[in-house]
């Protein structure tokens, strides 16, 4: 009894049903499996993504926001902190002079929105990177070594997962004396790494049992080689997707923490501070609330859409 398809790449029967009616689009299985399985995956994803408006538009938006954060002076020549309440400059409506009007303290609201991007995005970025590094390492170790390492790390993960995010972050931030983007990011990292750790652990355990990893192991690959060359590349896609969404959620978290009084403090400039200082005025001057909320919502929305698109592109099951 022999499979008539004796030449070419063997397709596993598990995938048979889906491959049966989905025409193969570019051969991804060639070459040495396990060496660079994701090169095809990522390359494929990229080709697919650049054609999707739900990916391209948010990406452009995020790039613009990033440029606000990196080179705000290209966007405005005004100083966001040159404020005065004297002379009726408080809460002016948008005008040619002040595109977004002025804040309650008479600051140029446009300049504040531009410069506010830096702190908001910095917190999100540092937070997300930290979460990926810490959560990634812990999840990787727990998944890879298993046994006692896993038991202990999983309990530690449970502890931090059980702490309510917002309350935990508030406790942590009240302990810290200084409030700057770094400490706020630290709070987000300490409370946020657990989910990544779980995702990573799950992916690593799944990858550990993949045939080619077993094969590499049988061929005597070293632990570190197994981990970094064979397992990590497989586990990285879901982490990237989640981290992208986290970027968005962290932008939102900055606003919430600042609103609750444990975030950034004036005279720093951030979207969260803008919202906090003006949330009570939205009946009289809605633009004071809507402008910073618009920036936050736009950014969060963009990151989530990018994350969604990445997931669709990277998940072979959904192709």
């Amino acid at each position: 009894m022999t499979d008539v398809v004796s030449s070419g790449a063997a397709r596993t029967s598990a995938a048979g049903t889906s491959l049966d009616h989905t025409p193969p689009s570019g051969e991804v299985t060639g070459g040495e499996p396990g060496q660079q399985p994701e090169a095809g995956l990522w390359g494929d994803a990229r080709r697919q993504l650049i054609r999707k408006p739900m990916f391209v538009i948010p990406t452009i938006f995020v790039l613009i926001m990033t440029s606000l954060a990196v080179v705000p002076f290209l966007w405005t020549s005004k100083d966001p902190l040159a404020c005065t309440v004297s002379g009726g400059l408080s809460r002016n409506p948008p005008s040619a002079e002040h595109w977004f009007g002025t804040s309650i303290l008479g600051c140029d609201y446009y300049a504040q929105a531009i410069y506010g991007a830096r702190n908001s995005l910095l917190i999100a970025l540092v937070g997300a990177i930290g979460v990926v590094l810490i959560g990634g390492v812990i999840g990787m170790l727990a998944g890879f070594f298993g046994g006692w390492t896993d038991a202990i790390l999983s309990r530690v993960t449970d502890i931090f997962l059980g702490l309510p995010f917002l309350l935990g972050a508030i406790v942590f931030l009240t302990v810290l004396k200084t409030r700057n983007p770094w400490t706020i990011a630290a709070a987000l990292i300490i409370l946020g790494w657990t989910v990544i750790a779980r995702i990573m652990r799950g992916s690593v355990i799944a990858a550990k049992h993949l045939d080619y990893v077993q094969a590499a192991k049988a061929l005597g690959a070293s632990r570190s080689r197994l981990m970094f060359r064979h397992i990590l590349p497989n586990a990285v896609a879901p982490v990237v997707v989640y981290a992208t969404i986290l970027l968005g959620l962290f932008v939102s978290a900055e606003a919430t923490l600042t609103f609750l009084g444990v975030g950034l403090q004036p005279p720093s400039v951030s979207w969260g501070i803008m919202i906090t200082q003006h949330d009570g005025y939205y009946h009289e001057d809605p633009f004071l609330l809507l402008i910073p909320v618009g920036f936050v919502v736009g950014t969060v929305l963009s990151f989530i859409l990018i994350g969604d698109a990445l997931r669709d592109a990277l998940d072979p099951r959904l192709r």
Partner: protein
Amino acid sequence: MGRYVIRRLLQFVPTVLGAMFVLHYLTSVAIQFTGNPVRAIFGDRTPPQSVLENLTRRLGLGDPCLEQPFNPCFSLFGKRLDAIFLHLDFGTDFNERAVTDIVAGALPHTARLTLIAILFELVVGIIVGVLAGLRNGGFWDYLVKVSTVLLIAVPVLVLGLLVRDFVNVKFGNVLRGVDGMPELISRGFFAPTWSSNHPWASLLMPGLVLGALSLATVARLTRASLLENVRADYVRTARAKGLASNRVVGVHTLRNSLIPVVTFLGTDLGALMGGAVVTEGIFSVPGIGRQVFAAIFTGETTVVIGIVTMLVLVYLIASLAVDMLYAVLDPRIRYD
């Protein structure tokens, strides 16, 4: 199954103790660096030293380790564990109200709020998710996708304020002006803030706001997992069996698609209870969120440790319950 549950319950012990220690340490460090929080009770007026000292001691913050930066205060932690586990004494807040009383007073409100939020996110989230999943790529799908992402993106404080001021106050006032409008609606469902006259009805709007974020997640999860399952072989089998399409979706696809939703709910329960701070504040719901929130700032460590530990426990029990439910939903999973 029994052994599995016992093993999981045993695992709770290190987790709960660990969480308590983290909280104990953080709050101790806070006191070590910021000074005796009891002092703030007296406001601008400096109290007689003896009064301050006596009160500090009575509130359990007299341990000298609280004056040594980074001292982990193990003996104080021991005393706290002893009081809590051997004498069921969770301490008091600065007004010397027992933490157990505070929880007993506040928890029912938060529990109701959470229940409403969960029901809302479940019912609406799943319906919307199914709708979007079945119309994959269509108008409804995009509408659901964009609106759920929007719900996630709008900070809850903004959403809460808008709902309160426009729906509950403005629209509610219109209803309150209508003759013959039942109070349950005009002063219950549309009460401007939580009202003790309608303890359930006036939690509806706060519950919807609280559930909105998770609603979006439930809808997205349902949609994604439905899309995944709709292509499953057994769904094709169901169609080959000549079953009507709503039975194919409602029975054969949905049951499987709910598994990730259930998993999410487990983690969400704890998050909702702990995340209700903002919602409870906006709608003045006397729940535990605002108790902890106030306690953090005033340095009422016993309240923080007591309530947050309880939330951790709720989270753990919920995740255990979810795992059991998981086994019910997916017979392939067996715990032993």
